[in-house]
């Protein structure tokens, strides 16, 4: 094919158009790429800005959809400014947008203007875990009789297989109380909680459930989730947390559907 002479410069590499197109997409300081134009000699600045706007706004929207409680706490203007910084610094590396935002809680932790809200990153971590649980594989939950039918020694040696939706978020702040208050539709009253809280996120059927764990249950379930046997997980929790109550922890574990099966032992 004969290429018009005026096109030689841009046609040197006919398949390299993204290299010229993308740098300005996430950087408003850069000029409109030289390889594009408006029709019939028109300018392309506002035209290129449509793509710039689509990319940035759609990524901010994706973060807003994934972190609604975080946005309610900060207010929309604050959130969207924060999300814009993050989207430009860390655009997605997968076309699956429900996987986007894994680095967002860490970004919030470092974000200068969020420093007065040290709990905010943990609320975002709970929301990110919520979205993981929502899309996780479906699986049956461990039935109570699988535990009650075990002899004591077998139970002590049992290692459990996590349900694909199970996530644990441990916070030094009352993150679960703040998350729950801001994730529901009603007005948010004054939050009196001051204690550290750990969140258990599961999806035993179709609805994602978020629970504030009783004292020591985070240590206990955390150990079980890292494949420690039941007996040693219970002992560790008792040592680390004197208020730990095994019966309560087992009840929560079964009700929430933390595990899907007993993997070994038992």
């Amino acid at each position, binding site marked *: 094919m004969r290429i018009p002479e005026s096109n030689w410069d*841009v046609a040197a590499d006919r398949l390299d*158009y993204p290299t010229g197109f993308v740098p300005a997409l996430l950087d408003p300081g850069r000029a409109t790429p030289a390889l594009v134009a408006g029709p019939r000699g028109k300018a392309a600045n*506002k035209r290129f800005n449509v793509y710039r706007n689509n990319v940035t706004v759609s990524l901010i929207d994706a973060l807003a959809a994934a972190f609604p409680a975080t946005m309610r706490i900060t207010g929309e203007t604050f959130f969207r400014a924060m999300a814009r910084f993050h989207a430009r610094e860390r655009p997605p590396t997968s076309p699956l947008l429900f996987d986007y935002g894994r680095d967002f809680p860490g970004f919030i932790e470092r974000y200068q203007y969020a420093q007065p809200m040290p709990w905010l990153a943990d609320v975002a971590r709970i929301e990110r875990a919520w979205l993981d649980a929502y899309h996780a594989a479906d699986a049956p939950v461990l039935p109570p009789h699988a535990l009650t039918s075990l002899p004591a020694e077998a139970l002590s040696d049992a290692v459990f297989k996590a349900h694909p*939706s199970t996530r644990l978020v441990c916070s030094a702040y009352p993150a679960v109380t703040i998350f729950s208050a801001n994730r529901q539709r009603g007005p948010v009253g004054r939050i009196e909680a001051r204690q550290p809280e750990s969140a258990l996120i599961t999806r035993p059927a179709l609805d994602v459930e978020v629970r504030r764990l009783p004292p020591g249950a985070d240590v206990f379930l955390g150990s079980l989730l890292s494949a420690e046997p039941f007996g040693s997980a219970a002992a560790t929790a008792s040592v680390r947390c004197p208020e730990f109550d095994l019966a309560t922890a087992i009840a929560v574990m079964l009700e929430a559907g933390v595990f899907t099966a007993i993997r070994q032992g038992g």
Partner: protein
Amino acid sequence: MAKLATHADRGASEGFRFPAHRIDGLAGTSFKHQHITSILEDQAAKRGFFEVHAENYMGAGGPPHAALTRIRQDCPVSLHGVCMSIGGPQPLDKAHLGRFAGLVERYEPALVSEHLAWSTHDTTYYNDLLPLPYTEATLRRVADHIDEVQETIKRPILLENPSTYLVFKESTMSETAFIRELVRRTGCGLLLDVNNVFVSATNHGFSALDYLADYPLEHVGEIHLAGHAEQEDDEGDLFLIDSHDGPVADAVWTLFDIVIGRCGPLPTLIEWDSAIPDWPVLKAEAIAAQAILDRHAGAFLRRKSHAHS
């Protein structure tokens, strides 16, 4: 159109999860989760079809799959890929293509479509349908990508024409010539987005009717209709954004009527992806499209029977 099998080829002996609902001549809507209760209560809704963005169903499980399974039992479903990056120069993402093929196998959609656009470069996903130059080199590359998708999913796709806002200086052929040649080389079908034609025509100052006259209408297997927003370009002239956030414009309905008059009653989707209204508002748009399809269906049947007599 005869050689284009828009339905999966189903052997008589194979078992399928879902009924093979017919989609011919139907109007449909984007499927949005907030509408599912209204849809399931609405017997009339079940006479249309629903289109889903494939990427929203690429998670392992949970409510998205439960909802789509429920809808697929009662209605024909169209699987619309948004980010395969067919129009980009780099190799297709094999993992993504595999997930796409998995959805085709799992849901047995009546229609499968993707875009003439790109959205990933290197490892960054830009979450927009970005434009490409129309040259012999890009034509070869895009045709290879379509071949690869069709071989992987074992059926032809419908390729959607983009809405565009600017041109590449290096382009050497028109969009219609580019699309016509892709059809010839790959055997793919076409998804004609009438709103995109109108948006691009306005933005580039060409006639939408001229575009349609040069577009291979005989290969169209699905129509898209959507709303657009008005802005101004650098020169202060009217400039349209393909925003999918409102009702279909009158001018687009008129073009649609002309297209259906020429092509017959093709499956037609109302796309509404942001500022999503309550179900009755979206449904009213589909009813309006269905009325146009039905009006032309009678004329088409008569014309066909004359041709055969």
